[in-house]
């Protein structure tokens, strides 16, 4: 192959014949032209950071879930309680109802955002005037921080004097939803808001994927006499499937884990109507300081995420055009 490798292997052979009882391995040093530990040196910062900020907290979290521990007692006050936290969870109605809300928030919000994003992406991939500007406008909401977005939408969706309800009344809806003041509409309002935030990002990904798609497939479909709709279902959609699966999984996880928006906008209310699992855990951990119980919720949520991801991957397998 290369000069260096040739030299080292020759050297290896020479030393093998010199030292007798058939050493079966080549000398490890300098196989690729450098010492074996050189790559590990480059990896050290990452390994240390991942260990300290990810692996250790992960196992610590798993451990804490089986303890009773609050912030007052400090490290010394930690007490092993076995599966007591999990037993309590199973009997905790707030756990089950917030799990249900998470499934709604992530399970409806994610596909909705992705669907809107795909529609926008496909539309924005067609020729039109000021296309770059339009793409940028749809992308803007994903650049806004949680608090700024939350502030604006709290005011826009103000039940009596917000712009949205003013508009709804103007077009003849006498009883528009009370959004964040009502139990039924608070969570849907957050879902809609998350569509506004996330759809443009999905659209950008879709546009990139569409531009990567081989032109020949469309030409072949045209030759076979496929119409626009058929081209969409047989070429465009299957081509997007791998990317969309990945996107669905990551944004499902992201959504089921995030609590910032809800913490700022509704603090889980009114009542418990926006207490999703991630917010419930935040509340238990950082308002009531019941770390053991909070960690137990975290473990359950991780199991849920794992099951969900595996299921989605399974579903997708074999459906993509080029996976």
């Amino acid at each position, binding site marked *: 192959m290369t000069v260096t490798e040739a030299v080292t292997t020759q050297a290896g052979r020479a030393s093998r014949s010199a030292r007798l009882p058939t050493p079966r391995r080549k000398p490890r040093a300098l196989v690729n032209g450098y010492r074996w530990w050189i790559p590990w040196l480059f990896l050290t910062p990452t390994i240390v950071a991942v260990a300290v900020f990810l692996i250790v907290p*992960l196992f610590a979290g798993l451990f804490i879930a089986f303890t009773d521990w609050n912030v007052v007692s400090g490290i010394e006050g930690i007490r092993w309680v076995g599966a007591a936290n999990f037993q309590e969870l199973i009997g905790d109605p707030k756990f089950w109802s917030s799990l249900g809300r998470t499934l709604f928030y992530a399970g409806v919000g994610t596909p909705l955002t992705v669907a809107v994003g795909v529609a926008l992406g496909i539309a924005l991939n*067609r*020729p039109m005037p000021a296309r770059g500007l339009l793409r940028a406008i749809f992308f803007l909401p994903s650049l806004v*921080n949680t608090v*700024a977005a939350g502030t604006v939408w709290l005011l826009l969706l103000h039940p009596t004097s917000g712009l949205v309800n003013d508009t709804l009344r103007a077009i003849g809806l006498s009883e528009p939803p009370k959004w964040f003041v009502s139990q039924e509409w608070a969570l849907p309002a957050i879902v809609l808001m998350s569509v506004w935030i996330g759809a443009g990002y999905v659209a950008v990904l879709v546009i990139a994927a569409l531009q990567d798609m081989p032109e020949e497939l469309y030409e072949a479909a045209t030759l076979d006499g496929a119409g626009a709709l058929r081209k969409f279902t047989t070429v465009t959609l299957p081509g997007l499937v791998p*990317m969309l699966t990945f996107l669905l999984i990551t944004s499902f996880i992201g959504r089921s884990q995030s609590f910032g928006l809800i913490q700022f906008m509704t603090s889980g209310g009114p009542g418990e109507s926006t207490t999703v699992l991630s917010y419930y855990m935040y509340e238990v951990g950082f308002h009531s300081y019941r770390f053991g119980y909070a960690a137990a919720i975290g473990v359950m949520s*991780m199991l849920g995420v794992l099951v969900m991801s595996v299921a989605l991957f399974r579903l997708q397998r074999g459906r993509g055009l080029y996976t």
Partner: protein
Amino acid sequence: MSTEIIEAPLVSPRAGYLRRKRRERVVWWLTGLIMAMIAMLFLTPFLWMVSSSLKNNVDIFEIPLRWIPDPMVWSNYISVWFGERSMVRYFSNSTIVVIATIIGQLVVVTLAGYAFGQLKFKGQHVLFLAFLATSMVPGQLLLVPRFMFFRQIGLYDTLWALILPGLASVFSTFLLRQHFASAPRELGEAARIDGASEWRIFFHIYLPLARPMLAALAILIFDATWNDYESALIMITDESKFTIPLGLTRFMSEDGTVSLGPALAGSVSSLIPVLIVFLIFQRQFMHSMSRAGLR
């Protein structure tokens, strides 16, 4: 079928071409018009935010809504920037966290990306897969242990608690690995024969090749870190260490009374740096975003 064949020669090919061209033109304008209308839905919150931030509190909910404020009030911005609780503090905290995270993360992930992409070692593949798998660990479970960890080592309520967890990144490492893996191996091999040290090969040969990638990553890190609310919420309680998102909450919830004008002026201010970066680097931004998703 048969009628088409008979009629076809009657229409001159040129006329057909022109008609098609005109139809294309109409569709072109129509698509743009429809998309512009939908875009207005996405843009309205921004326009409303800017417009209302220039109004007195009482005028914000005035019906019918006045898009151009009259009178135009700058006092919200003045109080947000030069008032009692100036945002300058939050801005400088956020700037420190963002710059430290960008530099720190780029150093850490570039080294690892190089090792994974360009060097060879035993167990490389398995280690990389394990590393990728760590991105599936949900952040929620890590909150409590990280909180306790930073309390124990005394970094709770300092900006370090926001910077340090951002040093390693599976996502950035992955992108750089792909980048280094596509760089030609011959460059390094030739340099090795000439007796260059491994560090020199990395620093003087491969690192310069990754410069565009690093720039794109820096933009993404900037965006994510600047907007990070949740970590700050958990780790920071001292107001002098607030980052921007956390600082913005002060306007909304101070003793129950909401000062809308300053809250909106603060929100608009918080967007400006991100918008400027986005406008300047739009192309790289979109490009790196899409690469990120497609990986």
